[in-house]
């Protein structure tokens, strides 16, 4: 808990990062309060994915300071990781595991969080309602994947992989949702599902930071639309 202003979900100060030899992020200053929904725009190759992976602790900043819920992303990466989740373009699941196994792996490796049943409780006689809703199988049902639960992810279509990624996010329900092109590869039903989940997450007080160049998602009512251009951020349209 060092240096950051209390109560900010995301705080970036002069953050830089190169990919390959070139600087992609040339000084990012961003403050996002908890519970906000922020949409990030920018044309292909401007560094949206780089910024998201940086926020997710996968890329270290080359310069500047980056905090998520007050945790420094370089020095306190583990603490930050416990509070965020990233949905990548490809969905990020193991192709040689089934959908259900992928989710079970995620829960097995995540310490118990409020609302998330511990593995020890799995065998208890009368599961609570909350427990029922949060099992891997039930979550797969919520994203319309119950029929694919026991099939290898290798056999999934890209839309199904995306839904599986969403299911993992729902299951872990982190405080900060980082979404990279969440609508890509989804059919209309899938897009609506994504909308519902994002809205519900925001209603639960989650912070959502979404990179998307879909302009027809404005009905989500984002708190801000920002643009990444030439390695810096600005309010969209400003």
């Amino acid at each position, binding site marked *: 808990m060092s240096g950051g202003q209390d109560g900010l979900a995301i705080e970036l100060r002069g953050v830089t990062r190169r990919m390959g030899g070139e600087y992609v992020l040339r000084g990012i200053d961003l403050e996002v309060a908890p519970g906000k929904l922020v949409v990030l725009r920018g044309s292909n190759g401007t560094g949206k994915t780089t910024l998201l*992976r940086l926020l997710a602790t*996968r890329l270290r900043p080359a310069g500047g300071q980056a905090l998520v819920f007050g945790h420094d992303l370089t020095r306190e990466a583990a603490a930050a990781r416990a509070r965020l989740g990233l949905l990548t373009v490809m969905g990020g699941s193991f192709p040689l595991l089934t959908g259900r196994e992928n989710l079970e792996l995620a829960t097995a490796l995540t310490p118990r969080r409020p609302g998330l049943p511990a593995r020890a409780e799995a065998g208890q006689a009368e599961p609570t309602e909350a427990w029922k809703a949060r099992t891997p199988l039930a979550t797969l049902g919520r994203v319309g994947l119950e029929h694919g639960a026991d099939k290898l992810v290798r056999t999934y279509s890209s839309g199904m992989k995306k839904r599986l990624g969403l299911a993992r996010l729902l299951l872990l329900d982190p405080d900060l949702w980082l979404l990279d092109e969440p609508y890509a590869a989804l059919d209309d039903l899938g897009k609506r599902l994504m909308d519902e989940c994002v809205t519900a997450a925001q209603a639960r007080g989650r912070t959502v930071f979404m990179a998307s160049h879909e302009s027809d998602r404005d009905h989500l009512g984002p708190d801000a639309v920002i643009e990444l251009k030439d390695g810096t951020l600005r309010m969209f349209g400003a």
Partner: protein
Amino acid sequence: MNDLIAALTVARKDFRQELRSRATTVATLFFSAITLVMMAFGLGRDPELMRSAAPGVLWVALAFAGVIAAAQSFQADLEEGAFEQLLLLPVSRAAVYLGKLAASWLYLFVLGALMLPIALGLYGADAPASTWWLLGLVLLLGTLGLALIATFYAGLTANLQAREALLPVLMFPVIVPIMLGAVRATEAALMGSADAPLALSWVQLLGGFDLVYLVVCASIFHFVVDD
């Protein structure tokens, strides 16, 4: 404690994947068997030479298999960004390393246990029944050494170009001591129970090397996978 459970979970996942990518598993199996046969052709037909070369050839075949297995285990993970997703969970990197290590160790050990009788049969060497336990111990520690280095460097080269060629270039000079210890211990174990003390001192050495690499690799693995 949590880290231990995490390591076991990762190991189970890796092993499950290993079993499901049957083609790869079978390919490495036959790859090592073919290596044994080809080396026999290369060595010629001097029975004495072949008998004395058996331990060395066995370990060379296992080292090749180790490279392929380790590279494959990261390859499966890297597809579609699943490894990245795994690293985003609050798991320590050492646990991820140990988990992947355990899976490829188990795999290599089973492979070694299958290849050992084949190597002995092909090269006309025989193992005295009194030292089977020693051979098992040598196999256990030797494959651990190979898996330690292979897993570490496979993680390091996972997102580099030309990783297939790079991995052996990087790891073979490092595994020389492990190879030597394993070969010498195997030689000694094949000589019968009178030489058990000789084999045991090579085993001690092998165990010592393994433990050093275990501590070093597990503690610096995070520098390698965190980008």
